[in-house]
């Protein structure tokens, strides 16, 4: 379970903005069709979500659950349904159910019970699933959602019909048929394999009101549920691992009609973008049948989404509706909540994504920034901590969304794993704002902080990176360079104006990149970076000069282009320097340096 918590924020960032992948031509045709459909028909969409809870033990027995462990190693008589075994409710399951119910603004049932949902299937050891039927633990709530900016943005509120507790079934796999024939004859053909590790794992089922109208809305609802369960810490909400499963119900009706159309269920949706695409496909399929007068061909059934062919297909048709013969679970007592218990859980809820988004909006951040920062609770916490230390809101947002996010993605780390602390980020921002260091140096320091930790002040002192902007200081350095190189000075005065670069280069050595590039007049006129920043074309330093100076080889920001050449990152060099450098080196060797 722990490994899934370390998903990077950028991975999650990709999830809430599902993009329809298809060729431009089919995209056009699709858009035209969808436009026409949306004018003629209204789609009614509801979603049933199963959330696997991240408790340490199962719902009704103390077996641990570890995703990916060897089959049938985490089992006991209770979850295997052996005779005489009795279930006992895991208190954490009730706690998580109450947490989620409150976060979804539901009414809690202070008295609820478990029921048996009875059917036969190889992955259901007891022959029934312990669930909640008529008195679920939470009912009548809602979820507020922000649609992604690239899909037009906007707020939506979707109703939640109910939330209830239940247990998961085991896993069924098809064995290699091998030499077995396909017919069932004597002896019995064993062609299915069962793994009961997952049997008895606690689930929360969340049923939404049929409030969604498009694939995007449905996908964003699912993404928001994922965000919510991760914020609350009740589940890692991973669709790929199966800790978040969505089944979608879609029906359409002609605009203006009050009677609902026939509802079709879609299963096998493994990502938010599949939810989006499957719904769009199904709406189009049903609308086509309607428009052809074949509305009666839409039957109430379960269809599977085929990722490969990008369409829904019929599952085997069921013979009638299942009779689950619900009755109260006689082996389990009532679930009773009291006000103190509920209040204590309410007060322990973190700031939920919706609240965060509204607060960030009020701070003046753009919707794009808001959606990124509020997506992962750890990123949001980091951002909040940085702001608390007094950092500028927009700058903090930019650093986090830019350099920091890029580093996390490259190194595959979460924001909690990088060595940078929020306090140091605030310090960095303040240092740049107060012009103690340049922005460029700031980026270097940031990299150092993320990789190795430490403090901004510490690194500045250690690497002597304080920005020099005092003109008299700079003038002193220029004088020094000029005095140290009388031969070149003579040559310059004699007309070799190209040596300007040489002086600028030497100057740089003295400055060691601490100050920003200043336009330099060889005869002392320096313009301070604060007044006018101009990048000298020839701010490249020759290494055979460097060898005569005392420059540490582990110079901050130096990149070795060859054994002879060093490029000072501290100086404001354009990349075209590399070209001019090549010319320069030829010049210098000709000039006998």
């Amino acid at each position, binding site marked *: 379970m722990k490994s899934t918590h370390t998903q990077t924020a950028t991975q999650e960032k990709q999830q809430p903005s599902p993009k329809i992948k298809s060729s431009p031509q089919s995209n056009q045709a699709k858009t035209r069709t969808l436009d026409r459909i949306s004018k003629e028909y209204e789609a009614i969409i509801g979603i049933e979500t199963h959330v696997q809870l991240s408790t340490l033990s199962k719902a009704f027995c103390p077996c641990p659950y570890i995703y990916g462990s060897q089959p049938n190693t985490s089992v006991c008589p209770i979850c295997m349904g052996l005779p005489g075994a009795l279930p006992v409710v895991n208190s954490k399951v009730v706690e998580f159910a109450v947490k989620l119910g409150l976060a979804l603004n539901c009414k809690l049932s202070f008295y609820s019970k478990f029921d048996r949902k009875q*059917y036969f299937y190889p992955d259901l050891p007891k022959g029934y699933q312990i669930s909640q039927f008529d008195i679920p633990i939470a009912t009548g709530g809602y979820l507020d959602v922000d649609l992604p900016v690239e899909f037009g943005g906007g707020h939506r509120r979707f109703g939640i019909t109910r939330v209830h507790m239940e247990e998961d079934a085991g896993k069924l796999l098809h*064995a290699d048929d091998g030499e077995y024939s396909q017919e069932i004859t004597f002896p019995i053909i064993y062609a299915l394999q069962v793994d009961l590790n997952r049997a008895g794992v606690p689930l929360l089922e969340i049923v939404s009101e049929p409030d969604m109208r498009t694939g995007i809305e449905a996908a964003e609802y699912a993404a928001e549920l994922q965000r919510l369960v991760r914020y609350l810490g009740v589940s890692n909400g991973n669709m790929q691992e199966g800790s978040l499963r969505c089944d979608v119900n879609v029906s359409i009706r002609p605009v203006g009609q009050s009677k609902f159309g026939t509802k079709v269920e879609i299963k096998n949706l493994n990502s938010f973008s599949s939810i989006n695409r499957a719904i769009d496909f199904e709406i189009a399929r049903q609308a086509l049948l309607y428009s052809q007068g074949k509305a009666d061909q839409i039957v109430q059934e379960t269809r599977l989404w085929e990722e490969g062919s990008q369409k829904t297909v019929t599952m085997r048709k069921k013979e009638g509706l299942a009779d689950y013969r619900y009755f109260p679970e006689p082996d389990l007592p009532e679930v009773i909540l009291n006000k103190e218990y509920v209040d204590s859980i309410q007060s322990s809820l973190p700031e939920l994504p919706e609240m965060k988004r509204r607060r960030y909006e009020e701070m003046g951040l753009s919707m794009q920034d808001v959606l990124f920062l509020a997506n992962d609770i750890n990123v949001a916490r980091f951002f909040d901590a940085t702001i608390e230390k007094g950092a500028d809101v927009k700058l903090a947002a930019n650093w986090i969304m830019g350099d920091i996010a890029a580093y996390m993605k490259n190194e595959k780390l979460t924001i909690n794993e990088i060595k940078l602390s929020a306090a140091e980020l605030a310090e960095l921002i303040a240092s740049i704002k107060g012009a103690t260091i340049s922005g460029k140096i700031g980026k270097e320091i940031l990299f150092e902080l993320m990789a190795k930790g430490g403090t901004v002040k510490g690194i500045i002192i250690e690497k002597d990176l304080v920005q020099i902007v005092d003109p008299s200081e700079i003038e002193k350095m220029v004088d020094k360079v000029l005095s140290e190189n009388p031969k070149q000075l003579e040559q310059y005065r004699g007309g070799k104006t190209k040596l300007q670069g040489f002086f600028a280069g030497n100057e740089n050595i003295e400055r060691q990149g601490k100050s920003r590039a200043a336009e330099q007049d060889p005869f002392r006129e320096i313009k301070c970076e604060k007044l006018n920043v101009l990048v000298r074309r020839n701010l490249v330093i020759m290494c055979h000069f460097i060898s005569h100076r005392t420059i540490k080889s582990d110079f901050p920001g130096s990149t070795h282009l060859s054994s002879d050449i060093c490029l000072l990152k501290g100086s404001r060099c354009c990349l075209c320097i590399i070209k001019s450098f090549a010319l320069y080196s030829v010049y210098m060797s000709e000039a006998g340096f």
Partner: protein
Amino acid sequence: MPTRYYYYDYDYNNRTRNCSTTTTRSSLEPPDVPRLAQTARISLTPHEVEEFAPKIRQVIDWFGQLQDVDLDSVDPALRADSETGYLREDIPKTFKNRESMIAAVPSYDEPYIKVPKVLNKE
């Protein structure tokens, strides 16, 4: 298929009662043995159906005596027992005797339990 519920129309969480007599208070239907057998996935020969029907009927009628009790003045219980809220701490524990359980599986093909192929889910 009528849902066989023996509840009143009762709001358990507000403990108020909406009075109405439900149809299940009337006499119990005779058992439809073939359907019961199908539901329970037990195969019966026609002879066995004939033989079992009256025996099952007898048991139902014996319990059916409870239908005669007047319950109008009694609050329905959510459940039959008085013990409430026995919960377990969320502490994982590995079951020690896994080997005997696995040994009791009729067809075990390490590491999976092998089962006959099933055509339809319910």
